[in-house]
């Protein structure tokens, strides 16, 4: 008799732990040949709130890490992804071609390495010492905004998610992300790599579930300080309306323009800047 393989229970990565939805809801996904693959947690409003709480708890510690350390942890995440590239490509290839999936994994690794390098440089490029017209020492530093809500695109289930999460955490923010609704499994696998990359628990929290259900909570949760979303016009409007309630920063990638996640223009210092606050300090110069 052939050995029956052990299948993995898909769980989302929240607060450094692998959990099912508190709502006990799931939705099934299929593999490339249309057979049952697994049950994905259908996360609820409460799961999102718990994830925000975990992100809030992890925030100060992550922001206080030295930029060099953050860079190394991002690099380590790249190492983990590279080491399990084949497994990840299989996960992406649940829908679509295996070769394209392998390309996507490679691009995602490269994206992480790109941002790893920025961690200890972005402040040097974006900050400044300002020559004010009075005897004061005046300088501008960058600081994270806090918790960034990421709403990943349906396509490029790994690369799209990584392209939004990486710049946010490079700058010292923590993230609550909603994975691709129709292709959630690569995000679940990414959670396992996050857990083994020295990234402190709670810095990145990835939920799976339905956009319609969770996006309004992302928009209005007052502790989410910024939104990074790939969204269509209607979703952008809804997110912006909710964001106004707590003066949330919003950065949208237009879904209808079909962003090219493989392009070099999909990574930028300015994607880090979008989730940074500038803080300017004055001090008198005198004896």
């Amino acid at each position, binding site marked *: 008799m052939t050995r029956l393989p052990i299948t993995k229970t898909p769980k989302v990565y929240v607060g450094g732990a692998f959990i099912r939805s508190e709502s006990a809801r799931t939705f099934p996904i299929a593999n490339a040949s249309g057979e049952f693959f697994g049950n994905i947690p259908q996360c609820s409003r409460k799961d999102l709130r718990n994830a925000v709480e975990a992100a809030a708890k992890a925030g100060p510690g992550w922001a206080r890490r030295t930029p060099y350390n953050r860079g190394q942890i991002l690099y380590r995440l790249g190492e983990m992804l590279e080491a399990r590239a084949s497994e990840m490509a299989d996960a992406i290839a649940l829908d679509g071609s295996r070769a394209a999936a392998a390309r996507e994994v490679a691009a995602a690794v490269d994206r992480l390495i790109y941002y790893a390098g920025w961690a200890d440089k972005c402040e040097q490029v974006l900050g400044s010492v300002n020559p004010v017209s009075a005897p004061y020492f005046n300088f*501008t530093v960058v600081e994270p905004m806090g918790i960034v809500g990421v709403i990943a695109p349906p396509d490029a289930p790994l690369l799209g998610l990584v392209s939004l999460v990486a710049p946010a955490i490079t700058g010292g923010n923590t993230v609550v992300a909603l994975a691709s609704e129709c292709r959630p499994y690569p995000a679940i696998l990414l959670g396992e790599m996050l857990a083994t990359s020295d990234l402190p628990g709670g810095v990145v929290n990835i939920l799976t579930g339905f956009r319609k259900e969770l996006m309004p909570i992302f928009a209005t949760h007052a502790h989410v300080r910024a939104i990074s979303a790939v969204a269509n016009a209607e979703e*952008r409007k809804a997110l*912006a309306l909710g964001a106004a309630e707590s*003066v949330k920063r919003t950065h949208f990638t237009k879904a209808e323009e079909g962003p090219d996640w493989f392009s070099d223009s999909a990574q*930028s*210092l300015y994607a880090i800047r979008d989730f940074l606050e*500038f803080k300017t300090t*004055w001090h008198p110069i005198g004896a």
Partner: protein
Amino acid sequence: MPAHATMPPIPPEKRKPASRNGRAKGRALEKARGRTAPELIFGDLWEFDPAPESADPKLKARYDLFINGEFTVPKSGKYFESINPANERKLAEIASGSGPDVDRAYVAAERAFATWGRMPGRERGKYLYRVARLLQDRAREFAVAETMDNGKPIRETRDFDVPMCAAHFFYHAGWADKLEYVAPGRRAAPLGVVGQVIPWNFPLLMLAWKLAPALAMGNCAVLKPASNTCITALKLAEIFQDAGLPPGVVNIVTGPGSTGGLIMAHPTAAKIAFTGSTEVGKVIMRSVAGSDKKMTMELGGKAANIVFDDAPLDQAVEGIVNGIFFNQGQVCCAGSRLLVHEPVAGQVVSKLRNRLRVLRVGDPLDKNTDVGAIVSRAQLDTIREYLGIGVREGAEMWQPPCRLPSKGYFLPPTLFTGVTQSHRIAQEEIFGPVLSILTFRTVEEAIEKANNTAYGLSAGVWTDKGSRILKMAAELKAGVVWANTFNKFDPASPFGGYKESGFGREGGRQGLLDYAKLV
């Protein structure tokens, strides 16, 4: 606000008829007791001669809209009155712009953008330099006009508002041909037409903060000044004409708040910039939701000014006074919450009271005036309402004895002691000369209390310990931290808030980039 001009001589009441010997003995005694000499309090005992600024503000009886380089009558044909808050007299009539005027302004701006946006930066910069120079030429005239329109002391308009406005144009003029240094790795390009709505607390300066970077980057603008304070914006439009600024590059539409709403939500606006209350900011954000416009929001604040026991207390008291009574406290970044270290709380409050007793409240055009008029009856009523709320919630109110002018919207500088974090006067932006005083024991408590607000615009910290300053600067959730100083501004220094104080920066390289798209 610089320190009080000159120390007045000792009035007869305070002179002690002691012999030289006796005085020396007294001093020795005081030294022995470890006390410093008592401060001299004059209050109204010492009369200052009036020192009115007499430059001619050259006001017109009526101000029209400034659209496409010309002053034009509003479509409605309606005008409203601009009142001098210091004497409640009418200063001028201001055009009441509405929808059709806003549309006209955007058409003019869009047309102007075709050339302005493509003009070599070197040439664009020259126009901005001209504006700065022409404003400097007419600085005193503008200062007087600003004081009459807004009610703030002439000392502030003369020494701060007008020169700082000119400085903003001069600073940004130099950027116009150096835009390739604004965004390393990308090319910064203008956005198109920007819609801008500014508040009444710094009418000229807020205008410069908005227009100078927008224009330097190659954008054209439709701007609405606050309805209380339109005059200097329209006087500056005269300077735009004198400078030969191409028609349509700047359009100024005056009118009620609803006109501002139309400017913000206009489909032609590629970006909007708003300075005002958080409440209105949220309304604007909702009104443009789904439009994909870029935004800069400079909203309210409730800044903590934190004084540690090792701070140079006399300097700190000057900083506290400057922090909350500059511009009658009508400043979004005002240090409206004083957090004072318990060991020195009594001393600081007593020094503060003494300092307030010698602040001169009154005619804003008098060069000796420290605290001028509140901008409007409505604002005065709002502030007074907060005074009532503070008292009802159990805080103790103190105002120095001072004679206020019989006409005009004046309020004595006000302190509240015994304030707790849950008090509304510790949570809500009052936008007036009202200081809420709280105490703390540890550094952690100070940070916790300072950050316990939905706002995050500015903060102040006073201590002689360098490492503590840097620690506080890192922990305070605010866009501007003033250490051993307060309320300092500069065109090269980015300004803007965290949290519900808004987003985006104004000033510096960082602020300039907020007026660009990256290509």
